[in-house]
């Protein structure tokens, strides 16, 4: 991997990433938009209310006047003085809501009017009055707006008999109220602008404050490198939202560190495992060449060389198998097969060896599995081979198939052998790890058997468990998930077992 790759790998998207807005920018924008909506809504509502109240007051006033006139005309039609007072004096004196009144008789002639009304408001300007006979519905009087004037007209019966009807025309100057509303409208815009500027500033500040721990966590994460994988970031008290991220990040670091440790352990073990056969090859060849030998002696050396080469070739095969199994692109052959039949095939293969050693191998149970039968056979073969190696004469190895409740199938390989010490159990599935004396070489073993079993189980979406009691025997349990798409089996509580 080139350095460039490493850099872009560490900071993906630092150079060319699809345009996304920073969180600060997004938060600020949200603040501004919500503030704008809020201010507009509040301003609009208040304006509307003000306008409505104003209108209500105006019409109420006009309605009140109309009612007074109606009463005067009906009850005292001949008291012109009172009418004149009402029309000429009250109206012209009224402040601040200035209004005008004109009374027209049944022939349309002006009887009375507020002084100064005629030039501005000729009678023809007013809407035609609707008949107001009987009903007293002041709100429903016909009204018309003309500039800053509210024009209302109505018919009023004269005298109790009510044979004749006069028309009343009223106009109200609304300029004052309109100026108030105008003023309100003019101020709303600057207030809105100011509010938005404030919201944007506050938004940036709040977002920066809120994001500060994130910047801090980024800074800490940046300091963690392959050589400093033991550092953790959840050591500080983070806000609740980030605590989970920090914990997840730390968990990932733990897994990475574990993988790194295993990988370097594996490299060391591999180096050791390779060193031994190469050391043997070299040493034997050197010694053989040091002086003349008989053909038999040469033959012996060459045969030994072949054996070591065989070991190396098998190791390479095993490692390649594991590498392929680890490759996520590796596809598994999936067929339904009779597991019992496969167990019998493997048992038959080992039969001669087992009976030479005086160990009894038995098969029990029935089950069908979905997967690669050759890999299944390989896993069982590795386990049975191991079991036979560690079981003394008179012992027994049982291969048992059992169905579990959740449609999963367990293959149990148990022996009555020497067992594995508890301290070795967690590592026996590691490549080249040897539970017994690491320098003792078991004939036929290349130190990859259990690693291969584990990776075969992983390919099948299953698990392998081991349980061992020193001096009494070891039990391996292969758990194949229920037929169907293989999903990695979830963690199972396994008591004293070590789950791999």
């Amino acid at each position, binding site marked *: 991997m080139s350095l460039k790759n490493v850099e872009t790998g560490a900071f993906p998207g630092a150079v060319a990433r699809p345009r996304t807005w920073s969180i600060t920018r997004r938060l600020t924008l949200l603040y501004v938009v919500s503030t704008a909506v809020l201010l507009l809504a509040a301003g609009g509502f208040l304006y509307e209310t003000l306008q409505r109240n104003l209108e209500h007051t105006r019409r109420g006033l006009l309605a009140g006047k109309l009612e007074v006139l109606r009463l005067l005309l009906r009850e005292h039609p001949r008291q012109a003085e009172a009418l004149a007072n009402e029309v000429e004096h009250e109206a012209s004196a009224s402040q601040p809501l200035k209004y005008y009144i004109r009374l027209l008789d049944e022939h349309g002639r002006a009887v009375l009017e507020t002084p100064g009304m005629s030039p501005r408001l000729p009678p023809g300007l007013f809407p035609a009055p609707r008949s107001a006979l009987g009903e007293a519905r002041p709100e429903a009087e016909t009204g018309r707006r003309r500039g800053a004037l509210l024009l209302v007209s109505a018919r009023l019966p004269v005298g109790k008999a009510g044979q004749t009807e006069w028309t009343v025309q009223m106009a109200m100057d609304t300029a004052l109220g309109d100026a108030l509303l105008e003023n309100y409208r003019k101020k709303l815009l600057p207030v809105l602008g100011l509010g938005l500027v404030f919201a944007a500033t506050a938004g940036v500040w709040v977002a920066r404050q809120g994001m500060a721990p994130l910047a801090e966590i980024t800074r800490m994460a940046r300091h963690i490198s392959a050589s400093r994988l033991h550092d953790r970031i959840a050591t500080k008290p983070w806000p609740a939202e980030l605590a989970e991220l920090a914990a997840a990040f730390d968990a990932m670091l733990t897994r990475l560190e574990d993988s790194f440790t295993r990988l370097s352990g594996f490299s060391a073990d591999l180096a050791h495992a390779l060193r031994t056969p190469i050391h043997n090859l070299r040493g034997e060849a050197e010694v053989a060449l040091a002086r003349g030998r008989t053909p038999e002696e040469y033959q012996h050396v060459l045969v030994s060389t072949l054996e070591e080469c065989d070991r190396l*070739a098998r190791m390479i095969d095993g490692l390649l198998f594991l590498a392929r199994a680890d490759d996520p692109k590796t596809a598994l052959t999936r067929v339904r097969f009779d597991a019992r039949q496969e167990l019998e*095939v493997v048992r*038959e*293969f080992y039969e*001669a*060896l087992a009976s030479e050693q005086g160990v009894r191998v038995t098969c029990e149970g029935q089950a069908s599995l979905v997967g690669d039968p050759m890999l299944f056979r390989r896993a069982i073969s590795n386990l049975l081979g191991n079991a036979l190696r560690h079981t003394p004469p008179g012992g027994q190895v049982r291969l048992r198939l059992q169905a579990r409740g959740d449609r999963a199938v367990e293959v149990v390989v148990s022996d009555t052998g020497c067992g594995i010490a508890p301290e070795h159990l967690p590592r026996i599935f590691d490549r080249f790890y040897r539970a017994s004396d690491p320098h003792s070489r078991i*004939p*036929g073993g290349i130190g990859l058997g259990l690693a291969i079993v584990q990776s075969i189980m992983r390919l099948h979406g299953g698990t392998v468990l081991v349980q061992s009691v020193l001096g009494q025997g070891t039990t391996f349990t292969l758990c194949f998930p229920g037929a169907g798409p293989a999903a990695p089996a979830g963690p199972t509580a396994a008591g004293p077992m070590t789950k791999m």
Partner: protein
Amino acid sequence: MRILVVEDEPKTATYLHKGLSENGFVVDTARRGEDGLHLALTASYDAIILDVALPGCDGWTILAALRQAGKLTPVLFLTARDAVADRVKGLELGADDYLVKPFAFTELLARLRSILRRGPARQPEILRVADLELDFIRHRATRGGQRLELTPKEFALLALLARRQGEVLSRTLIAEQVWDMHFDSDTNVVDVAVRRLRRKVDDPFARKLIHTIRGSGYVLEER
């Protein structure tokens, strides 16, 4: 039997030449792809052993050109890459078999003989090696007229050795052919099985038929 070996790695080429010659083959060796293709197209061979990675043109190109020219010479190709895609490609191009390096020489010999044998090879019903007689119909083995009590697997093992008498069979090949164990298995098992077979087939008799070739495997032959 004339064999062409196209292999650029000098040590491999040398030992293949030597080993095959000693096993009765006439061997031509080419180090470069173009030379190999030229020889394969002009001379007549019974089989060609072809390395995939070659300077000049690679093994696949040679194979394709050969088949295009209508030459049906059996081809066994050698590859250092154990990728399934590689094998499939080779077999699709018309190779007869393949071997992944590192391989045992006995394995190469066995495969080579097997592709040379292909064709109208009918299995005899009764096979005789010295005084050993195998009856494939009744699944019975006798020696000097004396019935040998063999388990089915022992009979299968003896039959394999007898059918390929004179050929050294590696433990891996035996495990594959007799027990269908197509992977690296405990080869110790094969030794034990052969030892038990010998007890029945050879021990009671003066002339031994099954021989151990140290470091390679087993062979059944009259010596």
